[in-house]
Structures are given as structure tokens and as C-alpha cells.
């Protein structure tokens, strides 16, 4: 097992900066998800770890060892491609044996290891089939097995589930997580699917525009987004973000919302409000943390999505909109006037100018 350290990594492609000064540590045996929208630099980050790209600045270390300029065939990382990149002209056996064959492993040992990994990944029955035309879940296991047979201490996975249809993804997620538990490697998993990141990862690293936005456990990142991007990107639907101004009325802190009405701040929220440098803030709260409150903000219902167990209620006033998630028993209709407020301890304050969280961690 090995930890991965990215120190001050910068990657430029001509004038385009793919990664801006990134520092990230992936711990020993950890499953880290690199999460972000397309073009955020997550794949580039992974390619730098794998050695397919050389960083413009900065160093990459595996444990204590600086491997920034070590060529990719000598890094010994396992890599699973988005399309698996199975050698289609070879059989399942030959695919699994490839790495061992390249490093000149004696035939008896090679055969034993292939049998072993095939057993483990339940590929024994199809070991001598051609690898072209196999189903995706077999291809995925084969791609993992092909790398795992070399017992790499680091495993990198590049959106391995993006070609899989939705119904099958849940199965594959479970399978992947199970495999990681068994192999106990340090895993970096690139995805744009927050559900994958949330369900599988020990920690999530959220990226946007080449900048690492936040690193933390899935729950921590979800509950305490460090800035507006993370708040909006995570969650489905994302966090409600309402601009407003801080107001101190006789020692009690409020946010006077632009759309009218105000929200009271309590406890640590009030403290954070008092410590804020600027009065202009964005008040955030999760759709799940919305409750009906006669003293709350007045909005009209614009759209109701009933999706089985949950009901997503869209509310708005002018350009501002709020989404709320209730169970399926909620009785609201389009056009209703409602008053809502965030639940206690659900408010997250962000500085309007920088977008950074005002909460003291």
C-alpha cells in the first residue's frame, strides 16, 4: 500500500491551464473519488498520477518516492480505462496474463496466478474465450483483474461505469467497492457522477476549472460545502442559494433576503454572521432541510415533481427559486402560496463576493 502526494501540481496545455496549483494527498488504502463536471481537470490529474502526462510544475510522490519523471511503464499503477481497453485480439486468459508475460514471470507461476485471479473474479468459466464481445460487467472485471494480477499498490479508475446503463450501475458499484475492500489498494476513482462518488469513496475531492475545491468525507463535503460551487454541484437537486444581507437587530442576527423576508440565524450561524467582513452573503440550505413555517419566507409553488418516494416542490418569487424535497404525502399544488423556512442548523452562509463558506469549520 502506498499513499499518493500531489505537491503544487500545475498542468498547462499551451495557454490553457488544466490544473491550477493543486495539493492533494491520497492516503494509504484509501478510496478517493475525484469528482467534478466535464473538463474540470479530474482526468488530467489522474493521468498525471499514472504518468501519461507530466506536470508543468510540481511533484508527484508515491509514499516518500518522487516519481514525477518516472515513465508510466515503471510506475506500477493499475489503471482501468473508461472503455476498459481490453486487448480484443486476445483471449480472457491472455489478457489476464499480459502483465506477467511482459515482466518474464515463469510459466508455472504465471498460470497459477491467472487461475487464482480468474477464480477470484469469477472468470474461470470463460478463461479461454476470446475477449471481444463480452458483456460490460465481465469486461470491467477483466480490466481490473488484468491490472490486479500485478498487485499494484495504487489503482486508478477512469469513469469505469459511464458506459453502463443505469440499472446495472448499482450492481457494478457494489462489485467495485467489494473488490477494493478485498484488494485493499489505494484507489483513485474519477467520476462526474456524484452518486458513484458518495456511495463508494472514503473521501471525495471536488474539482472545478482545474481547481481543487474541497476534499473530505462524502458526508462532510455534502453537509459543509466549502464554497458555492460545491454546494450547488453536490446533491440532487443542489443546495438552495438565496442572496441577502446580514442584519444585526438588537443582538439577534438575520439574513434579509433579496426576494423579501428574512431568516433568523442561531448559534454558530449567528457567530459566523457577526464575524463576516461583508454584509453581502448567500444563504444556503439543502432542499431536504426545508420545512413549512408560518413565519417563514413567502413563495408560490411553480412546479411539483412527484418521483415515487419523494416529492420535489419548486417554489419561486421573481427570479429567485427554492426547491424542497418532501415525502410523497405532501399536499401542495402549482399556484399555492406557501411559507417555508430552513430547519435548525441547516443554514450554510457564504460570502457573496468570494463564494467561500463563512462557517468556521
Amino acid at each position: 500500500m502506498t499513499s499518493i502526494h500531489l505537491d503544487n501540481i500545475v498542468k498547462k496545455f499551451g495557454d490553457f491551464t488544466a490544473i491550477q496549483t493543486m495539493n492533494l494527498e491520497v492516503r494509504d488504502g484509501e478510496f478517493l473519488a475525484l469528482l467534478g463536471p466535464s473538463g474540470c481537470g479530474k482526468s488530467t490529474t489522474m493521468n498525471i498520477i499514472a504518468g501519461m502526462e507530466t506536470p508543468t510544475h510540481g511533484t508527484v510522490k508515491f509514499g516518500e518516492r518522487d516519481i514525477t519523471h518516472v515513465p508510466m511503464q515503471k510506475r506500477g499503477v493499475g489503471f482501468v480505462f473508461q472503455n476498459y481497453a481490453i486487448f480484443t485480439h486476445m483471449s480472457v486468459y491472455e489478457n489476464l496474463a499480459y502483465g506477467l508475460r511482459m515482466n518474464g514471470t515463469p510459466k508455472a507461476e504465471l498460470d497459477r496466478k491467472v487461475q487464482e485471479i480468474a477464480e477470484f473474479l469469477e472468470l474461470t468459466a470463460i478463461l479461454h474465450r476470446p475477449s471481444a464481445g463480452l458483456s460490460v460487467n465481465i469486461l470491467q472485471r477483466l480490466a481490473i483483474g488484468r491490472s490486479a494480477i500485478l498487485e499494484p499498490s495504487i489503482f486508478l479508475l477512469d469513469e469505469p461505469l459511464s458506459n453502463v446503463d443505469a440499472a446495472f450501475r448499482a450492481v457494478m458499484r457494489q462489485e467495485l467497492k467489494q473488490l477494493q475492500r478485498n484488494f485493499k489498494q489505494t484507489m483513485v476513482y474519477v467520476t462526474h457522477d456524484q452518486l458513484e462518488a458518495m456511495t463508494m469513496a472514503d473521501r471525495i475531492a471536488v474539482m472545478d476549472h482545474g481547481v481543487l475545491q474541497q476534499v473530505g468525507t462524502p458526508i462532510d463535503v455534502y453537509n459543509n460545502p466549502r464554497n458555492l460551487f460545491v454546494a450547488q454541484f453536490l446533491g440532487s437537486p443542489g443546495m438552495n442559494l438565496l442572496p441577502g444581507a446580514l442584519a444585526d437587530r438588537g443582538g439577534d442576527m438575520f439574513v434579509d433576503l433579496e426576494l423579501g423576508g428574512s431568516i433568523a440565524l442561531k448559534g454558530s450561524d449567528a457567530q459566523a454572521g457577526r464575524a463576516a467582513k461583508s454584509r453581502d452573503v448567500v444563504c444556503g440550505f439543502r432542499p431536504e432541510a426545508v420545512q413549512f413555517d408560518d413565519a417563514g419566507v413567502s413563495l408560490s409553488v411553480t412546479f411539483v415533481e412527484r418521483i415515487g418516494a419523494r416529492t420535489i416542490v419548486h417554489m419561486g418569487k421573481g427570479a429567485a427559486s427554492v426547491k424542497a424535497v418532501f415525502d410523497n404525502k405532501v399536499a401542495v399544488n402549482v399556484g399555492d402560496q406557501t411559507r417555508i423556512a430552513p430547519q435548525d442548523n441547516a443554514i450554510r452562509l457564504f460570502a457573496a463576493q468570494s463564494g467561500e463558506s463563512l462557517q468556521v469549520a
Partner: protein
Amino acid sequence: MTHSSPQTSNAAKDAPKSRLGLWLTLPAQLLILFVAVFPLLMQLYLSFSDWTPLAGRSWTRAHELWIGFWNYSDLFADPRFWGALWRTMIVIGIAVPVEFLLGLGLATLFMQDFRGKKVLYSTLLVPMMIVPAVAGYMFFLLFQSDGPINGLLSALTGLDVSIRWLTDPDLAIFAVMIADIWQWTPLMFLILLAGLLGVPREQLTAATLLGASPWQRFRTIVLPKIKVIIVIALAIRVIEVFKIFDTLFIMTAGGPGTATETISVFFYKIMTLELAWSYVAAAGLVILIALSILAVAAMYFLPKSKEAGK
């Protein structure tokens, strides 16, 4: 028939359909008959006779000069034929592999990025587009005893080099092969480049990550994926070597003596100088059969099912 099973009704439906197919393909079939089958039969017919243009009768009456398999037995006993075949084999055995290796090397080079790639690419393709007769004249002049090639060799070695490229019976075949390599390496390069471009990059990267060296990647990934293309490229060139004519004829006219007389030049000379047309018809058929066997052998290397070579 009042009672009919589903099978017979299907057959009844299919019969007129297949007859329609026959009618629709008839024009094409007639065309093939005239383009391919008719000349072949004509050649076969002539090869059993002693007919020449001086025989005083139309070729359609060649059966009056019927000699059975005489042309064939003559041919197999003709040292000039075997000599021509041997020289053709030398070109196949030396020039084609050189063209292949050069083409493969260049194609591999063009998979990397380097400065001046586009200019070099267009320059490389020029020889292939030059009319072979013109190329023949070019090399005829280049290979003169006092020509530029000897001039260059003199300048490089500091000696007075005057190699008789085209008039020395041992060297002339090499001069011809050099011209052939110059002209046809670009074709090999183009075909193999297309093959290399079709090798999935991700699989190469995957192989690299699994620890494969460049040579291992070439042997285990690239070669199996372009195997079919290599077979096709080699087959095209081998067949073309049997047809080498214009460049060679202008450079040496098959000489000195018969030192560069390959199969096509042999045919041409027998036809124009000895007017033994029926003899050439027999020889042509033998070569055709030999090439067909070769083509079938090449098919052996092609993938047997769809999954290979993806």
C-alpha cells in the same frame, strides 16, 4: 395443389424472387464474362496451339494448329523462363522486404509528432505518383557510369568510382531493385500507416501501464492488429513485381543479355521478337495459376471470424 404446407408456400414465394435476382445481376454477369472469363478462355484455347500472327489465319482458327500440351512442356524446359522467374523471385525476396521494412519504419516514425512532418509526408508520396516510364528515365540517367550516383559515391569515398550499374550483369538487377524500392516504398508506407492509425491508442497505453516495453507493445499489440494489413500490402507488392515492366524496360530493357529479364519483360520479348503468342499464352496461364495459389495462401493469414483484428 389445394393443400400446401408453410414450407412449400415459402419455397414458392422464394423461387420467383431468386429468378428476379438472376435477371437483375445478368448485365453485371455478362460484363464479367467478357472482361474476365472470355479472355481467359481465349488464352487457354491459344495455349494449346502453335498459332502466331504470321500463321496466315485468324486466331479463331487456331485449333487447326493444335499441338496439345507442347507449349507447356516447352515452357517447363525453357531455361529463359526459369531465369525470368528466378529474377522475379529475387526482386520479391529482396526489394519487397526492404520496401516493407522501410515503409513500416517510416509509418512508425509518422505515428510520433515531429517538426516538418507534413512536408515530409507529401514529399514521401511523390515517387509513387511519378509515371513509371519517367522514373525509368530518371534512374537510367542517375545510374550512368558517369552519372550522379557514381559522382556522389566518388565524392563520399574520395575515390574515382565508376560502377557500371546498368551494364554489369551482376549489378543491373540491383539498380532495378533500387528504383523499385524508391518508387514503391511510399505505397507500403501509406498502407502500413493506415494500419497503425487503426490500432487503438488506449490499448497501447494500457499495455504500457502493464509494463510493456516499446518492442513488446509492437509485438503483442501492434503486430497482431495490423497483421491483415501487412498480408494485403505484401500480396499487392508481390503481384505487382510479376508485372514490373516500364521502369525496368527503360533502364535496362531486360539486359544486359537477360540479366534483368523478369517475367513481364520475358513475355514482352517473346511476343514482339519471336511472335510466339501461343507460347506466351501458356506461360501467362501458368503464372496466373501460380499467383492464384499464392493469393489463396495469403487468405490463410486473414482472420477466420469477425472478432479477430478488431
